Every structure is written in C-alpha cells, then in structure tokens.
C-alpha cells in the first residue's frame, strides 16, 4: 500500500512502559523515527502477549509501514511477528529476541544471557570464589528473568564454595526488592553479595543494606545501566551492572526501517549489541542507558 507523499508510519510496540528502561527504549525509537521523517506511535503491551497481538493487528489494519518491536516473550511473540510478515510489514526486534529466525526482518539484540555471564565472572572474582550470596529475581513469568538468572548461574554454579542462601522474586520492583532484602538479611546477615535481575531491584536491595548497616559488607550487582545505578557505581555504592544500550538499540532499529524503505532487504537476522559490564573502574566511560552517541 504505497501512499504517495505521505510520511511513512512506524509503530513502536513495546512490552511494557511500567519500567523506565522500556520507556527510554520506546521513546528513543519513536523520537528517532520522527527525526528520520516518519510518523511514529508507541503501543504499550503491558507485559501481555495477547494485548501485543491486538497491537499488531491494529497496526497492520491501520496502515503502518514498519514495526519497531520489543517483544513480551521470546516464544509467545513469534506468532505476532508472523502476522506482520504475512502482511508484508517489516519487523525489527529490539532488545529482546524471538526464538525464530524467519519471522522478523532483523533483530537488534541485547544479549541478557551473555551479559550475565560476564557479571557472573566478575561476581566470582569479587567474592573471591567463596561465600554466601542472594539472588533477587524479576517477574517469575518473564523470560528475561530466566535468561539473566541462567547466564549468571552458568558461571557461578561452578564454584561450590559460593553458596546461594536465598533466591526470591521481587518483580523488577524497587520497593519489593527492598522489603525482600530486609527479610533475607534477618536470616543471612553474613552474605557477601547480591545479584539482582535489574537495576531497580539492585537499588532497592542496596537501600535495605544501608538501613541494616551492611552496605559496606555486601556487594550489589544489577543489570540494565539505569541512571540511578550508574550514579551509584560512580559513588562506589553498587559494584557493577550490565549495560544494555537501549538508545543505541532503538536508534539502530529506526535506521534499519529507513534503509528498508529505501529498498534494502538483506538485513542480518541477528545484530547483537553487546551488554557491557560497567563497574567502578570503567564507569566514567558510560552514562545512563549507554551514551547518546
């Protein structure tokens, strides 16, 4: 459906806006699309794959030309991408991958698993291969929760002296992480480290440690590269985080859409955007959510 003279319409379908990380991803994608001369709309799937389906259908029937897509689920979202493919609308996955290589036009991915492997290694090093630690999971129904957890454990579980004394969920929520941490500290006042599935929870856990006077004793590791945590790493409060580059990812996706409209078709199926570990040594090279350029 070629509408002459009309600007191209780009849909930004994002898994959730209930988390600043995704807000950054979605807004960067939309804003960059507008900079490139497109019309852009953000769709919030509210972590609900079925609602995501609705968004795809609505976007297609109302004539969007491309979809910049942050999937709710690696498996569940495949069907949705296929709907778009059938309608010959290109889909560019952002941040999260879908478990199919023949559906999306291209996937610009932040590899949570690999990122957490790196964090796991740093964790082992910092805890000196032994001691008690705690893991705080995100939403237990979320696939990112598990890819991060698995990446982390793929390393850490090789050190029998490192003992995970508690594994609890805090739904990616700062307040919940704080409360969970407060309770865990009652049983395990002697832990040496905490690994959190995202930065919001890392901040919450850190707050609990401060209140319990254990901020010095316990090392906190997060994941995302959110502004609070970057600042906290600078201030030597938090040990490390996995920097995802949502802005970079989003801009790349929008650029790809432009290239697609200009006729390019041979996109790499997977374009990994490495998750870089930010720690107290290298934090000065980074800013929140990656650098702007």
């Amino acid at each position, binding site marked *: 459906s070629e509408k002459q003279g009309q600007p191209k319409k780009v849909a930004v379908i994002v898994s959730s806006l209930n988390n600043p990380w995704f807000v950054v991803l979605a807004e960067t994608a939309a804003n960059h699309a507008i900079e490139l001369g497109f019309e852009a709309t953000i769709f919030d799937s509210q972590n609900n794959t079925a609602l995501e389906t*609705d968004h795809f*259908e609505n976007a297609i029937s109302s004539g969007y030309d491309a979809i910049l897509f942050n999937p709710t689920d690696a498996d569940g979202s495949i069907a*949705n991408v296929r709907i778009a493919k059938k309608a010959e609308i290109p889909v560019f996955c952002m941040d999260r991958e879908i478990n199919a290589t023949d559906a999306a036009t291209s996937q610009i991915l932040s590899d949570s698993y690999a990122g957490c492997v790196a964090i796991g290694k740093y964790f082992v090093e910092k805890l000196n291969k032994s001691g008690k630690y705690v893991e705080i999971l995100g939403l237990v*129904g979320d696939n990112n929760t598990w890819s991060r957890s698995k990446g982390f454990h793929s390393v850490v579980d090789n050190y029998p002296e490192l003992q995970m004394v508690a594994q609890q969920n805090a739904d990616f929520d700062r307040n919940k992480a704080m409360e969970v941490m407060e309770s865990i500290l009652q049983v395990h006042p002697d832990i040496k480290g905490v690994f959190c599935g995202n930065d919001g929870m890392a901040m919450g856990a850190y707050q609990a440690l401060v209140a319990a006077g254990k901020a010095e004793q316990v090392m906190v590791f997060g994941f995302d590269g959110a502004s609070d945590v970057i600042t906290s790493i600078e201030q030597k409060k938090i040990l490390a985080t996995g920097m995802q580059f949502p802005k970079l990812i989003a801009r790349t996706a929008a650029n790809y859409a432009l290239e697609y409209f200009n006729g390019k078709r041979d996109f790499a199926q997977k374009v990994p955007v490495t998750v870089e570990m930010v720690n107290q040594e290298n934090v000065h090279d980074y800013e929140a959510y990656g650098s702007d350029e």
Partner: protein
Amino acid sequence: MISLKKNFNIAQFQSLIALFVLCLALALLTDNFMTTDNFWNVMRQISVNVCISVGMTLVVLTAGIDLSVGSILAFCGAVTAGLLKNGLSIPSLNLFIGFTVLGAIVAGFLIGGGLGFVNGYAVTKFKVPPFVATLAMLTMARGFTMLWTKGHPITGLGDSFGFLGTGWFLGIPMPVWISGLVVITAVILTSKTRFGRYIYAIGGNENASRLSGIPINKVKIWVYSIAGLLAAVGGVLVTARLDSAQPNAGISYELDAIAAVVIGGTSLSGGRGTIWGTVLGAIIIGVLNNGLILMNVSPFWQQVIKGMVILLAVIIDKSNQKSE
C-alpha cells in the same frame, strides 16, 4: 422460536447509542476504523474478554464477583498447552499419557470448571464472601500456573490447535465463532431456562429464593464453575492465538471483564442485567482500545481516557435508570 428481543432493555439501548456515537466519532476522525479488516480485528480482540465477561455476568447476577478469572485463564491455557506438547507423565507409576488437541482442551476446561467449583464451594458451603474467595483463587491459580510452567512459556503447539485462535471459517475468525457460541448459549441459558431464572431470583433476593425452594448453593456452585469454564475457554483462545501459553497471561483481565459487565448495565448488587448488555460493554471497550490506537493517543493518556469512559458510561446509565 426463541425471541431474544425481549431481553433488550433501556440499559442496552443506552449502551447501543454510546457505541454508535463512539463509532461515528472514530469513523470521522480516522481513516481506518471503518474497514472490514478492522471490524474483524476488533471482534477477534474482544472475543477473550467476551468469554470471560459472560461468565462474570452470571456471577454478578447472583450478586457475586469473580476476581480469579485471569489467573484461571492462565492456568488452563498452560495446562492445555502443556498436555498437548508434553503429555502427562507420572514417573512414579511409570505412566505416560499423550493428549490429542481435543483431549488437552477438555482437560483445560475441566480444570477451569474445577477451580470455579472450588470458588463456588467456598462461597456457598463456607460462606466466604465472593470477593475474598476469588481473591484467594486469583493468587493460588497464579501460583499453580507458575508451578506448572516453572515460569516459562509453553510454545509450539501445532497448527490444528493454532487454528482455533488464528483460523477463519465461513469468512469469520474462529475466536469470533467460539465467543459467539458462548454468547448465544448464555443468552438462552439466562433468559429461557429455569437455571437462568434462578440466577436472577437469587441475585434479586436470596432469602425469598431459598424459601421458594430454589437450590441456592447448587445454582451458585454451577455459576462459579461456568465462570471458571469460560475463563478456560478464554485461556485456550489466548494460547491458540499466540501458539504459546504465557505464565503471566490474563493479569488484571478480571477488571476488563467487570468493566464490560458494568458498562453493559448489569448491577453489581445482583438480579439485574443481561448477557447482551455485557457483549455491548465488551464491544465498547474493544472499540475504544482500537480507536485510541488508531487515533495515535499516547499510551499514558489512553489510561486516563479509558477510566473516564468507564465512569461516564456508568453515570449515563444510572441517570437513565433514575428517570425510568
């Protein structure tokens, strides 16, 4: 012949006008609202909510409420998907049972009906207020879902199952057929059968109903079981559409269902309302969701607008009832 007309009352008329105005506005404001494509879109999108809301209507007519539908939906979807994909193996008995599509769906339905039955049992035999009984079930069924899926989606369920969610038959999407069937059955049930009459009577005056020899507990248990069953139908639809059972499917669906029921003119204190009203309510919500997106309204504003529409719909409905 069964006359369905009689069940249309002022409240529905109200909603119909609201819907009409909404559609007119959207037709004028957007290019893409009034297309066949978009029509089927909306219809398909509301089909899950319609199934759940129909069950919710029955519960609300008895002056109850069911907060657990979203969790039951997730659990049943996961059970069906799990059985279909992996079958059931009981290692201790050295037993493995494979499931056909039909078998897996029936199992999901049975679980849905069963959890609904538990709701009904708690409400009637233990006199737990419906709000509390189903709130507890909301939490528990979500836990079951997590235990069953270990937090991971179950994917790759095959084309014949997927057809239920994505296929078309005689030019109409399958989910619309299924939800349509649910609606028609429920309309007949509520308006043309003894069971339906009892539902209204119980919601209208439970004491008087008991003294008239109506088996209150039995009717209520059935109603909650049906609500659970219809949540399971919704679960199968969602799962089939996605070709994947999501552990966190259905979160807060109860609120959408209640909104549909209420916008459709059913009274939360029981005894008054119709299935058609609820269907209209669900359509209004669906059209609104669709329209806000077509009009490119920011997601943040969408929430504000949806809240206002719910409020307005009910206010208009109320002011109409008063002047009746």
